[in-house]
């Protein structure tokens, strides 16, 4: 088909630019996708960018910083054995907790757990929620009814009850907690994705994909998922703090991470018991937790603005 000579009509439509030669030399023009446009808008949003940078730095410090702290999170300083104020001579830069463990090391380790929970549990929720929601919305009919009624039933199961049962049956397992939280959080995600899928389903480009031979699976993967992702990614950034908070709550109740391991929630629980004697042990992890949540929310807001379809 390429051997067909360039006809008049074609040159009339596209090549009539005065300096067509120069344009041809410009080689392939890279288009700018909607994602790139959104990212540009996000970069212009100062609060969201500061939050993103802050989160990256904080996560980096939590994961790498433990190597530079003289004490490990589980090590008890037998010379102290009580909460002490910061002391540079002994290497307790932020002091110790009531058992004489280094507070800085524990906050960093707690941060690792909180970030991990936030990301892993949200990924679990993301994968299940998107696949269930997209399938239910796109296939429709009985499949939709079945999946959505299942979600309704899951909504009705009390969260704490569900997690306690999981913990009792499978034992207290660090990774199980991620799964348990993820299993709870996917419900809302699946509803959002289903709703978005329903609006996309009747668009002409989906019909076009079907006409050009796409199977249901390939249409969901190739067209539905990329198009719902804008909404999903906003919801993800708002789910992460929710999940972190939920983990803190579980740890506070004693259902989360097990000592000597810790998380920000567990640290706050411990600190709360001694807040009259050493407020430091409560305030420091609480500040870390709340600024992180704050930043995730800001980032989510920024993303929502950046991906807002009205701006396209």
């Amino acid at each position, binding site marked *: *088909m*390429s051997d*067909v000579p*360039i*006809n008049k*009509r*074609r040159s*009339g*439509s*596209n*090549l009539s630019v005065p300096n067509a030669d120069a344009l*041809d030399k*410009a*080689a*392939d*023009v*890279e*288009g*700018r*996708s*909607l*994602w790139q446009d959104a990212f540009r808008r996000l970069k212009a949003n100062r609060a969201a960018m500061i939050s993103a940078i802050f989160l990256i730095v904080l996560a980096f410090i939590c994961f790498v910083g433990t190597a530079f702290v003289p004490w490990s999170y589980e090590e008890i300083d037998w010379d102290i054995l009580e909460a002490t104020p910061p002391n540079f001579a002994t290497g307790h830069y932020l002091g110790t907790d009531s058992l004489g463990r280094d507070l800085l090391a524990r906050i960093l380790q707690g941060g690792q757990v909180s970030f991990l929970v936030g990301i892993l549990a949200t990924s679990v929720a993301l994968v299940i929620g998107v696949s269930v929601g997209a399938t239910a919305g796109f296939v429709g009919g009985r499949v939709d009814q079945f999946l959505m009624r299942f979600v309704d039933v899951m909504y009705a199961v009390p969260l704490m009850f569900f997690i306690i049962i999981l913990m009792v049956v499978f034992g207290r397992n660090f990774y199980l907690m991620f799964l348990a939280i993820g299993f709870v959080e996917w419900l809302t995600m699946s509803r959002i994705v289903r709703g978005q899928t329903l609006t996309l389903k009747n*668009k*002409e*480009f989906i*019909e*076009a*994909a*079907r*006409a*050009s*031979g*796409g*199977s249901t699976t*390939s249409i969901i993967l*190739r*067209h539905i998922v*990329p*198009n719902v992702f804008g909404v999903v990614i906003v919801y993800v950034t708002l789910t992460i703090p929710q999940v972190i908070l939920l983990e803190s709550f579980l740890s506070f109740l004693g259902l989360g991470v097990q000592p000597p391991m810790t998380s920000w929630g567990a640290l706050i629980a411990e600190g709360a018991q001694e807040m009259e004697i050493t407020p430091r042990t409560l305030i420091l992890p609480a500040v870390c937790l709340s600024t992180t949540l704050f930043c995730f929310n800001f980032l989510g807001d920024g993303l929502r603005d950046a991906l807002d379809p009205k701006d*396209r």
Partner: protein
Amino acid sequence: MSDAFLQVRDLKVHFPIRTGGILIGRYTPLKAVDGVSFDLNPGETLGVVGESGCGKSTLGRAVLQLIGATDGAVSWLGTDLTSLNKKELIAARENLQIVFQDPLASLDPRMTAGDIIAEPLLNYRSTMSKAERRMMVEGIMERVGLLPRMINRYPHEFSGGQCQRIGIARAMILRPKLVICDEPVSALDVSIQAQVVNLLMDLQRDFGLALLFISHDLAIVRHISHRVLVLYLGRVMELADKAALYATPRHPYTQALLSAVPIPDPTQERNKDRILLTGDLPSPLNPPTGCVFRTRCGKATDLCASQTPKLERAGDGQEVACHHWKD
């Protein structure tokens, strides 16, 4: 007749519409397409005209089985598409493509032009290498009048006419035998319309494809079609060769449609006889008995209310569904 290319026989598409009932719904069929039959030969263009809501687009989609038919048969090269299962249908669609009305809406906003055009290749030529695919995409882009270096652009960066060219390129890349054009030019301005219609005609000549050209623009249908099908409320009013239909329209509805086409000459335009149709298109939920057109027809009699007219031959290559076409 058995060697026909595309044979549509008594095709019906009814949508169940809920019209009452509290817990158990009462449904009334909306007869979007009701007993349409026609043949299409290789390399031929059949124009489908009719006013809004008469079932033109539904007919096009039902031929491709994008909308399931309630009754009737769509036989493509001898196999009935309505009887195929999902897999067989996907295989059959290799030769059946469609170009949509809204150029931008029919392109996935998150994909580049190249990916959009290459999609049929991914589905039907999955063994093709990336480089081969790119070559084919660039070839067809050039053929439909797009610069191959725009391959990485996104739909929102193109104009309406260019988007429609992308849609045409996607439909043509597999060299299909039949392309359904669902009002491909009605969203474009007049100068671009001409370009796109001429492109379709060029492609038809080069690839020998058959077109089912759906439009409400009688002038464009006259330009591109060999035969024309006039639909009203989901039924065929008249099916005729282009020349016969435009010279001697037999059905009162066709006559009214043609008289509404403006003549680009003020004196003629002012003096011509206009047949004005009164009233609106009746609801397809509750179509008139007998001849569906009788409520707006000047020639309607009691016979029209009691008996549905059948398509009958009215001269060379012309079929009319009217009791009174001889008057």
